[in-house]
């Protein structure tokens, strides 16, 4: 299967999962991501407060620190690489010199701030989605004002990542069984051809899935059975309010 770890922490009873619905958790995740992303530059104490809230969130979700770190690590390269260019491109006095490379002090500060904010935003989202089954999360997406196409793509993507993974594994096994002692270059060539073949098959499968959807009355959008929540939004409102307060504190911190 290969993706079973996605729901590993979803069924653990925790304070967060008992007191919030998947929809409410999505709003909390969005609130935390916006608070981190929109925090004014230089609001270090507010960012520290936000980090504390995220850590508390992980604790109330019973998500082990190691698991959180591993999941967040997957996203780090996406913002670390652009941030690495800042010390070289932002003008200012050099803090570190490595041969011909001079890393400016304001550039290093900006890079650190970007990495911190992005890590906080990703951590908050990771905490929230880790305690929610992926299927429930997709169902809860209905509550967000996202385009239908995005929601449908995410739902289909989640369902078929398993099927594609199985196909990749099968074709990979078939490939290994025939490559024998082929040179490395030949192996890489064969892997590329296999990947292209699997993508082509995914395209053909897409046509068949579309036919299956049409035959069951599909017109647009994915209707879901998501029941209306009876859980009070008290804790969600409280957490989002706290996040907004931290963001406001950040604004005040840099303005005085």
């Amino acid at each position, binding site marked *: 299967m290969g993706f079973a770890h996605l729901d590993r922490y979803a069924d653990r009873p925790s304070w967060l999962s008992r007191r919030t619905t998947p929809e409410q958790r999505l709003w909390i995740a969005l609130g935390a991501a916006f608070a981190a992303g929109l925090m004014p530059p230089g609001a270090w104490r507010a960012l520290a407060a936000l980090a504390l809230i995220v850590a508390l969130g992980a604790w109330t979700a019973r998500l082990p620190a190691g698991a959180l770190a591993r999941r967040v690590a997957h996203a780090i390269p996406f913002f670390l690489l652009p941030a690495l260019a800042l010390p070289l491109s932002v003008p200012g006095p050099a803090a570190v010199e490595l041969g011909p490379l001079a890393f400016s002090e304001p550039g290093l500060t900006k890079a650190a701030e970007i990495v911190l904010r992005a890590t906080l935003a990703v951590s908050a989202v990771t905490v929230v989605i880790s305690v929610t089954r992926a*299927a429930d999360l997709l169902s809860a997406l209905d509550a967000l004002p996202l385009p239908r196409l995005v929601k449908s793509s995410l739902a289909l993507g989640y369902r078929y990542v398993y099927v594609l993974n199985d196909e990749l594994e099968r074709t990979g096994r078939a490939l290994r069984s025939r490559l024998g002692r082929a040179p490395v270059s030949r192996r890489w060539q064969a892997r590329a051809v296999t990947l292209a073949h699997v993508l082509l098959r995914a395209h053909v499968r897409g046509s068949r899935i579309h036919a*299956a959807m049409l*035959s*069951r*009355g599909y017109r647009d959008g994915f209707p879901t*059975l998501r029941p209306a929540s009876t859980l009070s939004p008290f804790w969600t409102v409280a957490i989002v309010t706290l996040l907004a307060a931290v963001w406001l504190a950040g604004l005040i911190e840099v303005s005085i």
Partner: protein
Amino acid sequence: MSDSTGAKAWGVDISALTYSYPGAAAPALSDVTVSVAPGEHVAIVGPNGAGKSTLLLHLNGILEPSAGSLRVGDLPVTPADLPEIRGRVGLVFQDPDDQLFMPTLLEDVAFGPLCQGLPRQEAEAQARRALGSVGLGHIDARRPAHHLSGGEKRRAALATVLSMDPGILAFDEPSAELDGRGRRVIAEILRARPQTVVVVTHDVEFAAAVCPRIVLLDGGRLIADRSADAILNDTGLLLEHGLELARWLREGAPRATAPESGTSDRKR
């Protein structure tokens, strides 16, 4: 039309149906005429490339005929009537992974009823009934479909159309990739359906186990339309059209035999 159990059963009239895939040199179906009575169980058999699946896709308007016409009950299969036609004809595709596209099993089975405009509670009740009728009532329906076994997926795919309460059930290779027990379970479920059942397969024994009537297609043309017994007993016809029968093998056909010499145990 309804039977004593309350399930609807529509008839199908296919008249001089011809279909060519875009860019294909030869038509996939040529002048095929078949009628299926309400509640009748009919198998369409033929070798690979005979046009069986193409014919099936016409039943609920996934493909439009190049020539000829189809009727489902009193309705012609035309673009204007597709929503009604698709409610009448439940199509079960060959690969259950194509059919099960929603994040959870329950949402998958409820997809059709929800598309038909049923309220959520009613759609869920109908989905649970459909799961129960294929022997999956005991499993956690909030599970994603990728957690099911091959046989369970096949039954779940059947439940996705049963929940729509169609009058015609159309199956593309329902016994493919199933072990003996899985085939037997599916055959029993299909035999018990009060609806009209159309089964497309190249497995003649399975066809005969489910349907008393068999239509043979080859090269896009209708070759024979007889009782299952008549088709099973016409070994020459089956062989001529690329179909084989395990029973035929039991009745004196050449069998593979161990070579008299030339084998050796390398370790010896």
